[in-house]
């Protein structure tokens, strides 16, 4: 029930299964947290496979990892962290009911996400050129024929993990686009900003996954290598 004079009637949609808006918000928030936990288990399976094989073939994984561009990876990490910052600022703006600021920060988040994905595409293209994409034309220079398989394993995990992460980013971008559209129509107020909150949670989660991916994939034994 819209109780604030300045809030448009459509912005507070109390669904009929709930008694109060507070209950609805609580339920939605809990739902998003549980969903994120399922995502942890989802990515966890891949992390497990990665850990098993890294333990089995530590040297080859280190060599394969060193062929990734750590500067680009680090830059991308900074980009994502900044996007989490702009996302938090969007949530804050929503809490304060400042529509223009919400839109601005959501757009910035979306742009930064786009930068991340663009850089990722560039990296993948590099891998393609170097024949590091698993498949019939895979070949890693500098390793013997019996080690190609293990190197290919590394790259399979690399593409699976970063690919799944990128997919989540794309979905996140779609959600952000939808949020921007709704924000521009004044849907979010200080009383009702649950979608911004929840999608913010999702975005932060996707960021955290990357924070784990980056060191695991890019930084194996870097401290041992010559700069």
């Amino acid at each position, binding site marked *: 029930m819209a109780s604030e004079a300045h809030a448009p009637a459509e912005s507070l949609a109390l669904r009929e299964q709930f008694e109060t808006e507070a209950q609805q918000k609580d339920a939605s928030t809990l739902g998003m947290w549980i969903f994120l936990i399922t995502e942890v288990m989802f990515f966890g399976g891949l992390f497990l496979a990665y850990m098993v094989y890294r333990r089995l073939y530590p040297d080859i994984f280190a060599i394969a990892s060193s062929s990734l561009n750590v500067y680009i990876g680090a830059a991308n990490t900074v980009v994502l962290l900044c996007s989490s910052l702009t996302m938090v600022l969007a949530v804050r703006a929503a809490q304060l009911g400042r529509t223009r600021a919400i839109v601005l920060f959501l757009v910035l988040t979306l742009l930064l996400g786009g930068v991340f994905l663009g850089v990722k595409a560039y990296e993948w293209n590099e891998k393609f050129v170097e024949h590091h994409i698993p498949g019939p034309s895979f070949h890693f220079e500098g390793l013997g*024929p019996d080690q190609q398989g293990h190197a290919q394993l590394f790259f399979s995990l690399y593409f699976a993990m970063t690919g799944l992460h990128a997919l989540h980013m794309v979905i996140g971008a779609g959600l952000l686009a939808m949020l921007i559209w709704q924000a521009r129509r004044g849907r979010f107020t200080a009383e009702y900003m649950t979608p911004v909150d929840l999608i913010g949670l999702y975005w932060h989660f996707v960021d955290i996954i990357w924070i784990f991916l980056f060191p695991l994939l890019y930084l194996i034994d870097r401290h041992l290598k010559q700069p």
Partner: protein
Amino acid sequence: MGSKLPIFPEQASTLAPDVDHLALFLLVVAAFFTVLIFTAIFYFAIRYRRRSDRELPHVQHGGMALEIVWSVIPFGITMVMFGWGASLYYKESRPPDNAIPIYVVAKQWMWKIEHMEGQREINELHVPLGRAVKLTMTSEDVIHSFFVPAFRTKQDVVPGKYSTLWFQSTKPGKYHLFCAEYCGNRHSGMIGWIYVMEPQDYQNWLSGGAPAASLSEGGEKLFTSLACANCHKADGTGRCPSLVGLFGKTVQLADGNKVVADEAYIRESILQPAAQVVAGYQPVMPTFQGLVTEDGVLQLVEYIKSLGETPEDKTRASGTLGERH
């Protein structure tokens, strides 16, 4: 018949009566609880059957004492089951030192058996009565499982690694061999027989038939034809370590670790030489994956075992604890 109950298969190994005793214990415990529950339900249902629609029984919400009793007692019983089962399993994982080594290569859909002396069998395994036999097994394609009900033993046979199974037969005769891991079209056709023979009969069988090269002789031929000897010189002057007396020794690796040179180590050194490089040597050995079959690898393993061996060397590497290969 060696078994006491018609629902048990024949007992033909030292392990079989042990497993059957455990089975009997489990059966008795299960029967006891089954009868207990069935009887209780039956009795309560009849004794306390509803006599009028307006009956309202007195409420008992629960009793901690009872809950503890029927948690602790079953737990105690299960711990006995655990201990008993674990001790059998542990025994099964440690072949005796004097076990006769025999090799098994599984492929869709047959069992290839290779005796050290060179005899090859397909879907049949002849063994002497009363001697421990240790099978070292691998697969050429998918996962299979070597199962002999009369011996009460089973082990998956996995491509890319060796697994082992041992038994000691106690009764002459012929016993089913089944593949117990689904492996495709003719999974149920991948069956055969274990022939347990009196020692003299077994000797006759071994020396009968066309004289075949022993596994080790076959390995020696491969060692030459694949030019292994060019690098692995016996006196250690080649680019690569000498293999004399290698089997069973502890090897220092370039990354600082130590491993025991068992069958799996030798196999990996042939197929993936760069994985574990010996300290002080360069990783220059090429891989022989694709150039030698699993059969060939087994022959090379046997040959390398035979180089400068003493009986202690041969047995030290078998049945490493912690790895139920």
